[in-house]
């Protein structure tokens, strides 16, 4: 059982902490000093949280924007049975324990094709919605049913749809029944619960019970049935997102919304009946400040006490470090889940050659990108698995910055310099289109540096900045990525806490094409039989030790083939006033407000 005391004892493993470094790049010597505290807030009563975007909604399982989760974590309007803490461990939340196969909370029932995985959660009895009503198993069952409603616009129900049923034998017991082989095949053939057969296409050749490595995780939230059920009956699932409750949701969290001044701020007030005890600060105000310069200015003048990672980036490191040196703030640089990379289209006549791909990896000075563009606040990466996650394999091949080796590899592949210094082979110039999304400052700088690096080894890269709506366009009229018309393409993935879903990205079946209606995100078109086997196995086993082995081998195969040039991980950059206590940002996607009930401003 999670308690505040237990969390409080945990160390930070040195991952985070205020960073104070000398400011570099002082420009013309005219660096404006930050104006000192102008109109300091009355301390202790209110914490001002600065965010760069207004959450489009706070609705129950609506929207997947990160800023939504920051506010939702404070309100707790979709509390899950278990949750992650800042150390990426799964801890109980509404449940009393985390059910696993080892502790008997999860087990297999039935035989043959009717065998299924069954997970039993026992819920705490002391959790209440902020209107005083207790949270029960019925709220969990209701939430699952709403998420599964085809007309309700949840962003993702991939895990929830693996369940055949949610049972509630009593008010505080939830049993999640995963589908059996028979049920899965039937769903893939005929659809299930109003969802079309297409939604279950993954299970068409299911063998054995449907499994999910995240069976003990956050796929089952609770929604306040006593409020939502009458609304649902009145307006229907399609119109439910339009209701006011989605802007001022009822939750179990330490705070509740009292006022939402649109375009300006969301005011939150403490809920004294919060089950871990009354929050330490009476008011939390989430202020929307869309401009980075304004964020920095307001941080400097103490108009903001906390700035979340959506509003800051490694770009602002020099300003943040300067303020930290002036003892105005603390700045935190936490390794993030977002990683930048360049996909290489293996169908391209040049990029299809292994030596060319390896040469590109050797030619790019990735450390320079980190140092010069991201102010040295993050790290070069070599795998798609983040270093802090269990599946990361340190054994994978790494490509160091080595232009000479790149040239040698290209020469070996039969390329020779043409009259303009660009390599050619068989009369074909080694000239590649290098596309990325427009309007992103980091990418703007990175692409220009990479272009110069490639030119130094004789590769011509032609920059192509594509509006992101086109770059990422899916569906019948796909953009360069889904349509696989790109040659080199730079963008980022945001990793989860589990590699689940890697199959979409790296296996042969995930190559989007007209034939499969552009499903899957293996944009480079990487094909490898052993790789496919490993990825299939990884998603259908619950044996953690085996999963570690499988992913290690897969990463090695993948890195040797270089379908993707990994660049760097983005850091989560957050900052607080020096007096703010108990601020603990996480390396995962868990928002920094996860423990906001513990925040307070020391005098």
């Amino acid at each position, binding site marked *: 059982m999670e308690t505040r005391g237990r969390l409080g004892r945990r160390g930070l493993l040195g991952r985070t902490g205020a960073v104070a470094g000398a400011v570099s790049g002082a420009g013309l010597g005219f660096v404006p000093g930050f104006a000192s505290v102008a109109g300091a807030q009355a301390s202790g009563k209110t914490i001002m949280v600065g965010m760069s975007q207004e959450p489009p909604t706070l609705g129950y399982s609506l929207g997947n924007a990160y800023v939504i989760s920051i506010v939702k974590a404070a309100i707790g309007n979709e509390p899950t049975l278990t949750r992650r803490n800042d150390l990426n461990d799964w801890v109980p939340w509404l449940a009393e324990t985390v059910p696993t196969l080892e502790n008997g909370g999860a087990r297999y029932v039935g035989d043959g094709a009717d065998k299924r995985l069954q997970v039993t959660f026992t819920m705490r009895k002391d959790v209440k919605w902020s209107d005083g009503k207790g949270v029960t198993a019925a709220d969990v069952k209701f939430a699952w049913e709403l998420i599964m409603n085809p007309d309700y*616009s949840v962003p*993702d*129900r991939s895990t929830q*749809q693996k369940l055949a049923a949610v049972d509630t034998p009593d008010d505080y017991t939830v049993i999640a029944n995963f589908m059996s082989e028979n049920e899965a095949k039937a769903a893939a053939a005929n659809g299930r619960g109003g969802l079309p057969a297409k939604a279950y296409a993954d299970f068409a050749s299911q063998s054995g019970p449907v499994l999910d490595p995240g069976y003990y995780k956050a796929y089952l939230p609770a929604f306040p049935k006593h409020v939502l059920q009458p609304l649902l009956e009145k307006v229907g699932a399609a119109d439910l997102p339009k209701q006011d409750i989605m802007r001022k949701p009822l939750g179990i969290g330490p705070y509740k919304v009292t006022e939402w*001044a649109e375009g300006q701020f969301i005011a939150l007030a403490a809920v004294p009946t919060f089950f871990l005890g009354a929050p330490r600060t009476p008011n939390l105000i989430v202020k929307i400040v869309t401009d980075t310069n304004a964020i920095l*200015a307001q941080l400097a003048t103490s108009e903001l006490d906390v700035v979340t990672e959506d509003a800051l980036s490694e770009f602002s490191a020099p300003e943040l470090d300067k303020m930290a040196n002036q003892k105005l703030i603390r700045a935190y640089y936490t390794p993030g889940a977002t990683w930048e990379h360049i996909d290489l289209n293996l169908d391209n006549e040049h990029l299809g050659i292994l030596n060319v791909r390896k040469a590109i990896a050797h030619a790019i000075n990735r450390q320079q990108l980190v140092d010069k563009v991201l102010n040295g606040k993050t790290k070069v990466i070599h795998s798609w698995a983040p270093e802090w996650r269990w599946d990361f394999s340190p054994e994978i091949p790494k490509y160091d910055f080595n232009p000479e080796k790149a040239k040698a590899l290209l020469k070996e592949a039969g390329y020779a310099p043409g009259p303009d210094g660009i390599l050619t082979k068989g009369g074909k110039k080694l000239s590649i289109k290098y596309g990325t999304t427009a309007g992103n400052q980091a990418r703007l700088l990175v692409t220009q540096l990479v272009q110069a690096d490639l030119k130094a080894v004789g590769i011509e890269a032609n920059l192509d900045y594509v509006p992101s709506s086109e770059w990422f366009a*899916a569906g019948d009229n796909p953009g360069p990525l889904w349509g696989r018309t790109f040659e080199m393409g730079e963008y980022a993935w945001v990793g*989860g806490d589990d590699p689940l*879903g890697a199959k979409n990205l790296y296996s042969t079946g*995930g190559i989007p094409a007209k034939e499969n209606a552009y499903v899957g995100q293996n944009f480079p078109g990487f094909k490898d039989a052993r790789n496919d086997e490993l990825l299939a196995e990884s998603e259908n086993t619950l044996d953690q030790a085996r999963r570690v082995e499988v992913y290690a081998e897969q990463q090695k195969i993948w890195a040797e083939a270089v379908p993707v040039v990994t660049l760097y991980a983005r850091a989560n950059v957050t900052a607080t006033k020096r007096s703010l206590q108990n601020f603990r940002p996480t390396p995962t996607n868990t928002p920094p407000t996860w423990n906001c009930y513990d925040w307070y401003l020391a005098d």
Partner: protein
Amino acid sequence: MRAFLLRRLLQNAILLLFISVIVYGILYLVPGGPFDQLNFGATSATAAAAQVKRLNELLGLDRPLYERYWTWLTKALVGDWGMSWTVAFGQPVGRLIESRLGNTLLLMGLSAVFSLAIALPIGIISAVRPYSVWDYLITAFSFFGLSMPTFWFGVMMLIIFSVVLGWLPAGGAITPGKANDIVDRILHLIMPVVVLSLVQVAGQSRFIRSSMLEVLKQDYIRTARAKGVPWARVVLTHGLRNAILPVITLLGLEIPQLFGGAIITETIFTWPGMGRLFFEGISKNDWPLVQAITMLSAFLVVGGNLLADLAYAVVDPRIRYE
């Protein structure tokens, strides 16, 4: 007069319809819909594709263009602008605009008053003493104003007054929790109003100067002077009264410019108004929102022109509309 009014109203209605077709049609060309990002968030790609298809159907996005336009138009005519896609998912666009409209009108109104309050006296001084030192100074100032990239001016002001000096708040309309603090409100208004007024002052003072110069040459002015009416009174009553006519027209015609300026100013100073909302809508592909604000601003412009015409008739009895 009534016939004129009716004809103008009809013309304006057709104009607004024309704008709606253009805007609807052109936004249709932009690829992508409100649920595209779901294709990336899901662990099951096939499930996500099915989900996106279903949600698009629910919003009617799978229908042909003319059908979508017709549905949109008939709903818009009764005040239902649809729901926001990305800026405030699921929220009625009308309510979203309502929450920002007051702030924008406050900003635009104050700027109009402020700029006129400056442009009027300096325009008159220039006209009364043409080719004097004052006239040259004012002319030089207005040229600077006309040549200044507003956004750059705004950003420079932000750096100087908020960052370096720390005198003014760096953005927003109020400090949360100080809703009734009038000083706080004024401090937040200073920079946006000054930036939005700058170009207006420059143009208006030039305009008032020339309009006044023209009037002061007229016979009745000379007559008034000959009768011994003091010069100040001649300028302020006879002169100004007649010179103000074209200024009224100008104000009506300047509404689009003012709204355009509001987009930039509100974006720089994170002012919670329609301009910023519009820009947010554009950058996040929130088409229902963009369509509604465009129509609203077109409505403001068209209405402003009509009001200017009517005001003209009221101020100048010589004008009759047929």
